[in-house]
């Protein structure tokens, strides 16, 4: 279980996380547009950025965690850049250090279309972005850690491999927190809890199946599942009303287009609010 309380992270002078509260127990999706702070949230939980607030993993404050094999795994690439060796050797290294199952990692990589020969020849940073993501995701899952953070694991995977990865995620027994901006996952993983991430804040959680057909309505709605504030305006997610649904958007990045369009139309009409 991962608990974050009033989590604040400043990078380059600007506040990227603005007081995030969440308890991750079971399977979670952090769904948000690019730049909403999803990766920063994971980097903070993995101990990679300075933060204010409280982070606990399985009841242990992050600042006190040392040498805790099997407590947390992640697919953040920077975590695997430990020694300047080939990707296959890194796999060996992490099998030793984090107790990752080397054979399982290789099998997973094979399923995701990454062959052993390629890993024998290339360094981690010489792999393409998609292959690197598949590599780190396979390693994170192969550790069998009790808590797993997966940052955009579907990024640049082809549809068939996405389906395979969904199967792996469903079968995983760990606490899994996965970030993405792609809304099709709501349909694929209906039992997972969803936190919406916008501009450094988390909203929710709500079950994915509730959000799957939730419509986006401008402003605050009385029967809203969630009301979200953004720089481009406020919107509500409501069940059973007209309007674009989250899954229709395909990616949450398009929320801003939608809100901006609404604002442009209003300004053209001469509305003031």
């Amino acid at each position: 279980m991962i608990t974050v309380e009033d989590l604040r992270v400043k990078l380059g002078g600007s506040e990227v996380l603005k007081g995030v509260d969440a308890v991750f127990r079971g399977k979670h999706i952090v769904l948000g547009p690019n730049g909403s702070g999803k990766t920063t949230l994971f980097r903070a939980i993995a101990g990679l950025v300075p933060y204010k607030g409280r982070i606990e993993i399985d009841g242990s404050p992050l600042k006190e965690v040392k040498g805790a094999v099997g407590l947390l795994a992640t697919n953040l690439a920077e975590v695997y850049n430990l020694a300047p060796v080939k990707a296959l050797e890194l796999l060996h290294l992490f099998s030793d250090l984090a107790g990752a199952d080397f054979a399982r990692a290789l099998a997973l990589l094979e399923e995701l279309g990454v062959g052993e020969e390629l890993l024998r020849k290339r360094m981690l940073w010489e792999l393409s972005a998609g292959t690197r993501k598949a590599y780190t995701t396979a390693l994170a899952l192969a550790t069998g850690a009790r808590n797993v953070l997966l940052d955009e694991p579907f990024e640049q995977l082809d549809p068939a491999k996405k389906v395979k990865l969904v199967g792996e995620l469903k079968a995983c027994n760990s606490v899994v927190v996965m970030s993405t901006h792609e809304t099709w996952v709501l349909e694929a993983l209906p039992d997972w809890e969803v936190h919406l991430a916008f501009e450094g804040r988390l909203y929710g959680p709500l079950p994915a199946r509730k959000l799957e057909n939730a419509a986006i309505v401008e402003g605050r709605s009385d029967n809203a599942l969630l009301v979200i504030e953004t720089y481009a305006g406020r919107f509500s997610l409501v069940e059973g009303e007209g309007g674009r649904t989250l899954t229709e958007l395909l990616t949450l990045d398009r929320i801003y287009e939608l809100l901006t369009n609404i604002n442009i139309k209003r300004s053209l009409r001469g509305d003031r609010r």
Partner: protein
Amino acid sequence: MTLYLYYKLKGLLTDRSVLLWGIVFELFWVLMWVYVFTPIEGSPPVDILERMLRANAALAFSYLGALSMGSVAVGLAVSAFASSGAVAFAIRFTKLTPAKYLLEDFLAGVAAVVAYALVCVVTVVAATYARFGILVLPQNPALVIAYLALSGFLLYWLSRAVTLAMIALGKPRLPLLQMLPLFAAFLSYATLWLDLEDEIYALPLAPLLSLIVSAASGVEPATGGWLAGGWLWGSLARGVAPEPPHALSASLALASTAAWTAALAAVSLTLARKVRSVALEELAP
């Protein structure tokens, strides 16, 4: 011990840019030194020739070796910089605890520096043998290795301090700062011609190089200016023990090295507590 020690060392010994600057570049200058710059005139008696060649080889592998070690230290800085995020994660969530990391990273770094320096020793000895048919092995190999190890300690902590300073300054891509260990090596290299007298003790690597020359050749250590004024070659050619214009104090040289190493280690350990890790994206050109 974990596999980290093995893979870190392997990474440093197979890194293409370190191999280029630490071996290929150095090999070119070793050949130039032995075949072009070695000042042997006429046909001196064998015992004199042997002493001249031993001193010549000692100067070559100390000072050219310093450039090689400096290149490895730059490689250490680059890899430490790139792995800062991985280390922050590994010490929390793998069996690589902070103490194990510090020990294994230090051992791998020092071993790499010494290994590249030993390659320089071997190439100088081999090139000298190839040209003159005389094997000029170091007179006191154990002491040479001990001094090389001390150079490794110093350069390791210099590379760590440089890396952490770069991260603390918030300038992940500041290549000139990253090259600082090589600048230190070039500065020491200049003391082949330049006698710094007592000021040599203020330099981080130069006093050790003089001690290496002395341990390998039996010549009294100098504060620099080995190739200036002809005191070295003149004495060797006459068959008398060379007396440097300014002799180096071994105890002061070791004290200077210890002080530099301790100061750089202290800076590194202090900065390590303060700096954040660097993401892979920030390293992209």
